[in-house]
């Protein structure tokens, strides 16, 4: 049995760990509220954007349609944008995203497709570089990003568009975490390019009741403005949901860590008291039997 001093030391160290995890949990809870608000505030824009795109894309057919919308007509090279958090200590959050990414890579490779990866967030890069380092074409870290806003999404969007225009890939998918609720985050893969497929997956075509749209200046010019913005919007909402999910996962992880620390402290305290008692009893027996012997 460990000595009393050793036990006392362990109790103290677990107690300070508990304080740290408790503090981290509270920080995550505060950040979660902000991140959740941001993610929810961005939703109407993304929804309206998708609805408008659905309208427009049904009007655009034929070979003149922009390639961002209809794709390159091929399906050979896939770009996976894997968005994770930049920090750990948030349970299975990053691991789940990375696992989904690995599954997608494996599925695409076995289907004979080439895969390229762009990672957003440090953890995704770290998780994927061991197996798929040759496939990673670019990485973006969120370390220096104080708050996620349009500019970071536009920066990532620019990278994707540049790669696309250079003919580096045909299909683009975003793998990130869907913020279902505070305690539930689900990793998901969504198609980004060709945008038409992405829209068909998510949006119902609005019923125009036979009315014909008029466009100003014309469909092509509007799409030209709209498509890049659409890409940015999808990325922004993925990043915002990720941020909210990360905080939710961190809060849950830190909560259970705090609870585990509490249980451990209780157990150690019991053990400490028992051995203290045993020591006292032993000393008493020694004294009594010594007195009897005299």
């Amino acid at each position, binding site marked *: 049995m460990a000595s009393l001093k050793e036990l006392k030391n362990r109790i103290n160290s677990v107690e300070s760990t508990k304080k740290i995890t408790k503090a981290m949990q509270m920080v995550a809870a505060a950040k979660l509220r902000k991140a959740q608000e*941001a993610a929810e*505030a*961005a939703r*109407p*824009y993304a929804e*309206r*954007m998708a609805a*408008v795109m659905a*309208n*427009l894309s049904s009007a655009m057919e034929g070979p003149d349609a922009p390639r961002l919308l209809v794709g390159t007509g091929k399906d050979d090279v896939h770009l996976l944008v894997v968005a994770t958090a930049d920090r750990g200590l948030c349970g299975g959050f990053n691991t789940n995203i990375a696992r989904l990414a690995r599954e997608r890579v494996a599925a695409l490779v076995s289907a004979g497709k080439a895969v390229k990866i762009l990672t957003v967030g440090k953890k995704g890069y770290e998780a994927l570089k061991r197996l798929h380092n040759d496939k990673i074409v670019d990485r973006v870290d969120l370390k220096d990003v104080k708050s996620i*806003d*349009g500019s970071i*999404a536009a920066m990532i969007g620019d990278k994707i568009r540049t790669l696309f225009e250079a003919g580096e890939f045909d299909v683009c998918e975003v793998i990130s975490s869907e913020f279902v609720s505070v305690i539930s985050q689900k990793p998901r893969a969504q198609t980004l390019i060709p945008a038409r497929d992405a829209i068909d997956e998510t949006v119902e075509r*609005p019923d*125009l*009741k036979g*009315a*014909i*749209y*008029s*466009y*100003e*200046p014309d469909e092509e*010019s*509007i799409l030209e*403005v*709209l498509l890049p*913005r659409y890409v*940015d*919007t999808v990325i*922004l909402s993925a990043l915002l949901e990720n941020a909210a999910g990360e905080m939710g996962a961190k809060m849950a992880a830190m909560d259970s860590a705090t609870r585990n620390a509490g249980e451990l402290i209780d157990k150690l305290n019991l053990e400490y008291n028992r051995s203290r008692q045993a020591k006292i009893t032993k000393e008493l027996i020694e004294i009594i039997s010594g007195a009897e012997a005299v």
Partner: protein
Amino acid sequence: MADKLHFDLVSPERRVFAGEVDMVVVPGSEGDFGVLADHAPFMSTIRTGAISVHSGNDVTRTFIRGGFAEVTAAGLTILAEEAIDLADVNAEDASKSLTEAREDLGQARNDEERHDAEARIEKFQALLAELSH
């Protein structure tokens, strides 16, 4: 009173406005247009400028940059990159930012910085023009 028009103004960060109004005047890229209730389906890109929202006797003006307007049977939706309530800014700050942007343009070292500064100059010039109305 005629029917009301449902109007949504959203920017990537938040929903700026949602509600029933009488009329909205939008600076379209091919010219300003007013939208009343039961407008025909219509879609237009927007030039940087101010929209006027008419509700009863009140007119609210909001400065918007980048984006487009869509009119459907459900109402008018404007998706703007940026939306600033004109009541929240004053000409002094705007002209100061404009001067800063001009200085940045002079010191720009690469295309990216130049584009950024030019975009800001354009924005603040348009903002000042709207403020002087």
